[in-house]
């Protein structure tokens, strides 16, 4: 680890200082980029596994940057995360080409495989999700990676308890582990995380959970509760999407303080490592600086607090407002209609949702004040007024 630490430090100090002109007679400056306080890389054991990882790992998002992966490795990042489906398989191929020249025990690799037959609405698996097709994909992944085994094989994108407990896929995972093609098995989840994490605990076979976690999620407290329970049960916890989308608005004018957001997640000791998607050397340097210093500065705390107040664009369906409307309006459906209109430009669908819910123009008209307090600080009454006006437009104009 010491060598890795030194490599990382050298990256932070001098990564851009080695450039040298060899023609033109130009002079080379040897300025170093900003140095970061170094007190030692923080590592954590991944649950009951024997993997002890730096708290910052790498989500490998681009297949055209093998040198970025090499730089991350040389700087002390040990764990690299990819998936069977990333960039049509080119992501795994790139990683295979990079790591074929490195000692196999000097890094860890996780990949993810998606079952074939998923109901997109419910997240449940159907009969097309077979053990054979899952393992076939996984074997292809191993070939692309040019490896005999991966360190973690995830069931990719689990969205329900049913999906996790689906016998053929669970069987495929345990078979891969028994055959030595993966050291540990796990799942990744982007939605219904608390339910899925609880199911993972109940399954008794899951070693690692890769879950979304960031300060912008309305239900982050429920996720953290389940994470704590999973960690207590010896399950390794890896987090993703820690940067909350990197921007607070669609126009990308309000960037998230990504370093602060990553620190916020990693301050939870039950989170063992995180896999921020790294697509530039600047991002790499920023993430490396978090590896040994998790303390949030006053400015970072302020940034997170301010960002937390930015509501974002659309209702995330927490439904906590349902009981608050004195007229018992189907607020969640109305907000869904709002999203169809303003998010998807689908006015026809927006109108259909309102019609199905029996909403006419300005259903809030006879309310003097709104009793709804939105967890995202939306002005719900104003949004209802805005979207309900669509019922004034003749349907044929929306067809």
């Amino acid at each position: 680890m010491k060598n890795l630490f030194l490599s990382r430090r050298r990256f932070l100090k001098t990564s851009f200082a080695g450039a040298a002109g060899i023609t033109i007679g130009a002079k080379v400056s040897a300025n170093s980029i900003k140095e970061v306080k170094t007190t030692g890389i923080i590592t954590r054991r991944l649950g009951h596994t024997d993997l002890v990882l730096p708290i910052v790992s790498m989500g490998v998002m681009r297949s055209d940057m093998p040198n970025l992966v090499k730089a991350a490795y040389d700087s002390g990042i040990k764990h690299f995360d990819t998936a069977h489906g990333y960039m049509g398989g080119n992501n795994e191929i790139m990683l295979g080409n990079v790591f074929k020249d490195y000692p196999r025990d000097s890094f860890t690799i996780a990949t993810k495989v998606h079952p074939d037959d998923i109901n997109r609405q419910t997240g449940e698996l159907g009969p097309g999700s077979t053990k054979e097709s899952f393992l076939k994909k996984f074997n292809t992944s191993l070939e692309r990676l040019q490896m005999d085994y991966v360190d973690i094989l995830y069931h990719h994108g689990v969205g329900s308890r049913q999906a996790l407990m689906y016998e053929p896929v669970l069987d495929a995972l345990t078979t891969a582990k028994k055959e030595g093609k993966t050291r540990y098995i796990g799942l990744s989840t982007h939605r219904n995380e608390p339910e899925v994490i609880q199911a993972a605990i109940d399954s008794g076979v899951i070693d690692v959970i890769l879950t979304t976690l960031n300060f912008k999620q309305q239900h982050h407290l429920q996720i953290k509760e389940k994470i704590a329970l999973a960690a207590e049960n010896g399950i390794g916890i890896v987090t993703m999407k820690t940067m909350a989308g990197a921007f607070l608005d669609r126009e990308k004018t309000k960037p998230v303080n990504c370093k602060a957001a990553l620190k916020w997640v990693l301050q939870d000791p039950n989170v063992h490592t995180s896999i921020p998607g790294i697509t530039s050397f600047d991002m790499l340097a920023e993430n490396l600086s978090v590896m040994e210093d998790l303390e949030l500065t006053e400015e970072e705390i302020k940034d997170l607090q301010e960002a937390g107040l930015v509501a974002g664009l659309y209702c995330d369906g927490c439904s906590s407002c349902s009981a608050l409307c004195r007229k018992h309006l189907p607020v969640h459906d109305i907000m869904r209609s709002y999203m169809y209109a303003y998010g998807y430009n689908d006015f026809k669908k927006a109108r259909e949702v309102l019609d199905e819910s029996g909403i006419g123009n300005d259903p809030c008209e006879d309310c003097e004040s709104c009793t709804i307090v939105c967890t995202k600080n939306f002005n719900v009454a104003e949004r209802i007024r805005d979207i309900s006006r669509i019922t004034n437009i003749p349907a044929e104009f929306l067809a």
Partner: protein
Amino acid sequence: MKTRHLHFIIASLILLTDINAVTPEELFPEFNDWDLKIDETVYVPENLWELINGAAEAYLAYDFQDLHIGEYTNAKNDMIHVELYRHGDPENTFGIYSSERMPDYHFITAGTEGYTSFGALNFFTGNYYVKMLWSGASEADESLLMEFAGKIEDKLKQENRWPDILSYLPELNRIPKSEGYSNENFLGYSCFHSAFTAGYRIDNREFKLFIIQLNDSNEARLMLNEYFKTIHFNASGTKDQDHIVVDPFYGKMAIGTKDHFLFGVYNLDDEQLITQYLDQLRRNIRF
């Protein structure tokens, strides 16, 4: 209140114009003996991850706009699942398409380019990246998939053409199907964006060329200077248009400008070859 109401109506009418351009029914053609079911959910940047998880990151990097999904089924319970990814412009569509393409796929005539692989047929046309997947009782019928692709292409009414700038990259020793496009953070540097690339092979040596088109020569010079600043290369005092520097992550990097273009060669040590390719690139650039 009247003013706000008027604004809403105006905004609605403006948006309606756009809606008419992308109504799902207008995107998916009908086929004899196949039932079409269009997914009610339209995926946009905010929810794409719900469908394709972490893979969404790459699509978002290529200015993903929206995704419509349709499924065709026949009496034999075969299904053709069709995904229509719309990106901001043809360059970004080419970018995401080429990032998923593998050179050993079976390439076909569909859209600007397409391929088949294990029951899948993917192609790109204009702003659309179309992905089709066969599943069901029967073996995938490639000719039928081709027929579907042709009708979908007709329905989308896009212009099929390669980005013009690709023609500036020399053809000599170019690796087939190696062309790509990087919208941001090209080579991992935040100063580089909008780069078209191609791989080259001479004997066993592989190297890459890239070219970036900026709005004017000043922008090209600024990008070059930003790169030099990033790698701490001092180019002051030189009037040369081409530079060879040692990049801390890529080793020898040759880079130059011509008017509003910036271009370069990397992963190549032979300076004679470097000069040869830079000269060729410079000659190829016409505007």
